[in-house]
């Protein structure tokens, strides 16, 4: 199979000049924006994107065109924000778009802003991507100079200001209301929904927040049409998707695939299988927050929203973490629970306390001080967190916790019974704070 035929979003990855305006224009860049503004109009753009079935690529998978439709008719001030706060462990795909193809992100953002009637667009880039903030700002400056952005853009046909906003290290700002509050100048703590941001978001005005990969697909969809986009993928999961793959495989990195591709084929043909001396144990398909699958379960599923849901997990962000046989699953869940505890914003008690409890109980187990009833206690704490908080961070901790417990229970039981199957890494045990 020729893997290059699926490169809609990744065609400039690895190119030395791919981030330059001249290279992007030579590839037909900004033609879609001109057509959107000059010929189609906002309503037709919204319809085309809706017809393409493009689903939000940040993790939730909500159809982008439908989300855009939630902006109240006749709203005077609308804001558009691009979520480039890529922080979900295992996920590093948006980073490639921002690095190698910033103009695709800018053009997609401009078209999307135009489609929802926004005159201010904010690209929110996580603070740890310092070099990308510079790269994208340079590209935005180029786009202003070329007349694609600004008050009299495209000969006065529309207007759009674009701000590149640098985050400062907070996973929670990837949640859309946390992101909006962060841009407002507040702590990045999420707000309760409803009202949804599309109705009342930034400064109380309708605000649409879309992921980088979502907006980057928009110019291609307008250029080639919704039907061409739907030629890739499945009926419920149209198009292509970037998967960022980490762990000991032969070819880790960012791979663009047609949705619906069997995992087995992706693993063998795209990733080249496991690295020498490694054996597959488990797979986290879509970022650290989705339930883990055993190797056997992974081999039977396909990479699209509905197949992964049927397998008991989620496509999420496409941050695929390959776990080798040598890994201790209790150790890995300790790493993850430390993360969620560290990143909980602290406003909801079930999350603030629950993530800490999960972390401490797992740590106690690994320290050899666990008891058989700890497994039931972990489950009970999960029950007290899931679905009971303002934002999904608590659920994001609970999903891996429950699935690790369910699918790799003997490893937990051995520790709880005082049997140690693997020696704890004393270095790791010492490092954990608290």
């Amino acid at each position, binding site marked *: 199979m020729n893997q290059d035929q699926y490169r809609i979003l990744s065609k400039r990855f690895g190119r030395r000049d791919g981030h330059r305006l001249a290279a992007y224009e030579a590839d037909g860049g900004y033609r879609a924006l001109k057509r959107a503004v000059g010929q189609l109009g906002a309503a037709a753009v919204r319809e085309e994107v809706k017809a393409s079935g493009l689903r939000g690529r940040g993790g939730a998978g909500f159809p982008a065109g439908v989300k855009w439709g939630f902006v109240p008719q006749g709203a005077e001030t609308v804001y558009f924000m691009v979520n480039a706060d*890529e922080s979900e462990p295992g996920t*590093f795909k948006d980073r490639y778009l921002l690095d190698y193809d910033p103009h695709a992100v800018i053009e997609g953002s401009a078209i999307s802003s135009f489609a929802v009637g926004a005159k201010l667009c904010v690209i929110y880039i996580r603070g740890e991507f310092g070099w990308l903030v510079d790269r994208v700002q340079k590209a935005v400056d180029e786009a202003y100079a070329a007349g694609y952005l600004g008050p009299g853009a495209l000969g006065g046909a529309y207007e759009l200001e674009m701000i590149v906003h640098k985050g*400062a290290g907070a996973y929670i700002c990837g949640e859309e209301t946390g992101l909006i509050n962060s841009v407002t*100048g507040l702590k990045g703590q999420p707000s309760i929904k409803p009202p949804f941001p599309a109705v009342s978001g930034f400064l109380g005005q309708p605000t649409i927040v879309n992921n980088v990969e979502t907006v980057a697909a928009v110019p291609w969809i307008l250029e080639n049409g919704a039907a061409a986009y739907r030629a890739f993928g499945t009926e419920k999961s149209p198009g292509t998707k970037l998967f960022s793959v980490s762990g000991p495989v032969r070819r880790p990195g960012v791979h663009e695939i047609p949705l619906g591709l069997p995992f087995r084929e992706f693993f063998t043909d795209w990733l080249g299988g496991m690295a020498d001396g490694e054996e597959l144990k488990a797979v986290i398909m879509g970022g650290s927050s989705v339930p883990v699958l055993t190797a056997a379960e992974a081999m039977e599923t396909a990479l699209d929203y509905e197949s992964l849901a049927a397998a008991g997990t989620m496509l999420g962000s496409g941050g695929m973490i390959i776990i080798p046989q040598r890994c201790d699953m209790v150790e890995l869940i300790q790493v993850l629970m430390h993360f969620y505890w560290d990143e909980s914003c602290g406003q909801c008690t079930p999350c603030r306390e629950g993530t800490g409890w999960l972390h401490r109980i797992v740590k106690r187990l690994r320290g050899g001080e666990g008891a058989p009833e700890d497994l039931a206690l972990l489950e009970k704490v999960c029950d007290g967190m899931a679905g009971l908080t303002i934002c999904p961070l608590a659920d994001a901790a609970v999903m891996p916790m429950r699935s690790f417990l369910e699918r790799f229970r003997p490893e937990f039981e051995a520790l709880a019974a005082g049997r140690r199957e693997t020696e704890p890494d004393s270095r790791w045990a010492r490092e954990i704070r608290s």
Partner: protein
Amino acid sequence: MNVPIKDGNSFRLGEQDAARFAAILARYPTRRSALMPTLWLIQDRDGHISDAAVSWTAAQLELSEAKVREVVSFYVMYRDRPQARHVLQVCHNISCHIMGAQPLLSHLEGKLGIRRGELTPDGEFALEGVECLGACGMGPCLQLGRHLYENLTPEKADALVDGLRRGDPPRPDTDRDLED
């Protein structure tokens, strides 16, 4: 709201940074929304956000000092005290963990003679374990300033520390061979 700057506050922006600050205010729709970029402007210059800077920022953006301070303390990348010259931040999240973040941290502890979370006595180096840096397929990795060093081995980590000591660090992996 009129927030006075505390008496004796000597915090000032230079001419260039003052122009940058004015541009931020012009670009953001409210004064409050200019808070994060203003804090970055200050930290990029001073290396941290001092009490005087908090007071100055509060006055400029018409916020209470508490509202500025809570943002400084919420985001881990804002620092409220002076830092080591080189802060090595090693990702210890799941993907890097699988690929050897803990042995790397241990190696750097040995190389620098400090434990994670500590500072070398000469104030040159700090070593920290941090959460996911977004380089999962290139782990283990570490963050230094605006860039990342990726696919780290003990040898590559040694070369980085030695290079920093000499004032001639190797090029970061994210500083790619792209046209300017």
